[in-house]
């Protein structure tokens, strides 16, 4: 990639907006998923008895709804990310491409 092109894109406010918005969005969602997952793993590692707690009168333990919740939340976070990335972030990217069209 030509230096001039790199320079122009880096100085484009829309590029700066794209990178900072996407990074902070990705990092926030990523940390959320990681905290959720490691809370689960560390519970198994250090205090697995908690997961053996029974729900109500039956034998079923809380371990099952927790596993289900992690699966569902993982899916929902990917959906949230892609909704925004394929909308707002994609538009910004297209604007940037438009702005540097003469150099491509």
């Amino acid at each position: 990639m030509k230096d001039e092109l790199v320079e122009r894109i880096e100085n484009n406010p829309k590029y700066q907006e794209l990178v900072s918005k996407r990074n902070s969005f990705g990092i926030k969602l990523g940390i959320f998923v990681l905290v959720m997952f490691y809370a689960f793993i560390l519970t198994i590692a250090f205090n697995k008895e908690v997961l053996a707690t029974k729900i109500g009168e039956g034998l079923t333990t809380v371990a099952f709804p927790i596993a289900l919740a992690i699966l569902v939340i993982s899916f929902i976070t990917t959906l949230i990310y892609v909704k925004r990335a394929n909308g707002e972030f994609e538009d910004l990217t297209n604007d940037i491409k438009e702005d540097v069209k003469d150099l491509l």
Partner: protein
Amino acid sequence: MLKILAIISIIALSAFAAGDASFEATKRELNIPAIIMFFVFIVFTLGLTVWAARRTKSASDFYTAGGGITGFQNGLAIAGDYMSAAAFLGVSGLIYLKGYDGVIYAVSFLVGWPIILFFMAEKLRNLGKFTFADIAAYRLGQKEIRTLAAFGTLSVVVLYLIAQMVGAGKLIQVLFGMEYEFAVILVGIMMIIYVTFGGMLATTWVQIIKACLLLTGVSFMAIMVLYSFDFSFESLAVKAVENHSAGESILAPGGFISDPISAISLGMALMLGTAGLPHVLMRFFTVGNAKEARKSVVYATGFVGYFWVIITIVGFGAIAFLNSADGAQYFVDGKLFGGNNMASIHLSHMLGGNAFLGFISAVAFATILAVVSGLTLAGASAISHDLYSNVINPKATDEQIVKISRYTVVVVGIVGVTLGIAFEEQNIAYMVGLAFGIAASANFPILFLSIYWRGLTTRGAFIGGLIGLLTAITLVIVGPIVWVSILGNEEALFPYKHPALFSVTIAFVSIWLFSKTDSSERGRNEKEMYRAQNVRANTGIGSAGAVDH
């Protein structure tokens, strides 16, 4: 092509004949509906391969199916790569054996997805062309990085391949009473044909068809299980507890992951490993643009998440059904026929008779074939694209590259078959855990740092990455499974089954250290080049792959 079909049928028939003795010994009858399903699937997919072979001309066709796969199709194909024999047979078998501990695998396998999506998928798509080494080698030394990446890829491919081969061998053994060795050889031949002739296009379509069949089949099983318990998970759990020797402990994490280090290490391997699986990473290059790449991850996560929920029901269903009086027919000398990996296969017979057993077995076989094909393609691309066309012979023509790929496929196939026979007795979910461990230690750190760290240099990536890979492999060899179970030593030199916590940390630290202390001119240039790389990773401007399509 027709000649090859004829040869396969002869080999298949002679293998059935050779299997006579063993199914008499185990008193299995030849299952006609199962065999018919099987051959229908094989003939159909071979037809697909012929179709794909006509469309596969350039190297780009061979590796990326020409880039014309849609987000939805690719989502199914990624899910297909993920729902491997280890996932389907191994995890359901693990749940059958250990209860909730198997569910931990399922959860950990999925969580890797959002992480890949947020941090890697898009940037991979923007920077790469065929393989993950394209990204790492973008601004670093081609020779060193591609050579290392090729070894990382091959290590993961071979380990993962063993797991699938063992699953396939056991499956055919149970179904046809064919000798295990013959079964593994048959799978090897089929896989070589799919990949050498059809390339990524055939591999992707086999994967998509199989993903649909698998989701349908396993859903049916889960519904049948729940139907028998009036759609109450509680009643299923009560029955499972009653029928399992470990009793109530199967409903919570147990002794399987006994110490904290192993738990954290396994969790890390399964999560980060996903982001380093070469055959899955390759799938981001089969779609037209970043938008479709993102969509495909949503579909994949949805399908895989749903799959884990139903596999959990199937696993507990297997405990409830197989360990009952009616299930006694599936045991030989107190052991489940074909091993614990076959729990869901036997369950399908109990739930839907021979016809359904035939369907599920054909699906399981399809699963194995599709995944080994994807893996072999990843191995072939590591050799032909990374080693051959970028290191050994930079002037190679498309034709030469594709030719080298096809030779590699044959070699990888032979290696897979040989090791598949050697590792016959291993739990396949565990083997996959190891493959993930290597992927997490060798591939992920270089990939992640090359995208996110300006300071990465060739020296750091090469030495550090090599240390990561060697640490992971060494710790696996001196760990409890290989050192004790396979090599027959008394005590393991390294006490933990899963090395990821140590090897991933060592990889990151050494890559950092050797980059940091690199004061060469070349290292300075590489840091300079990060700016251009980062612009392209973020915007996709100048993206090589997309232009080709």
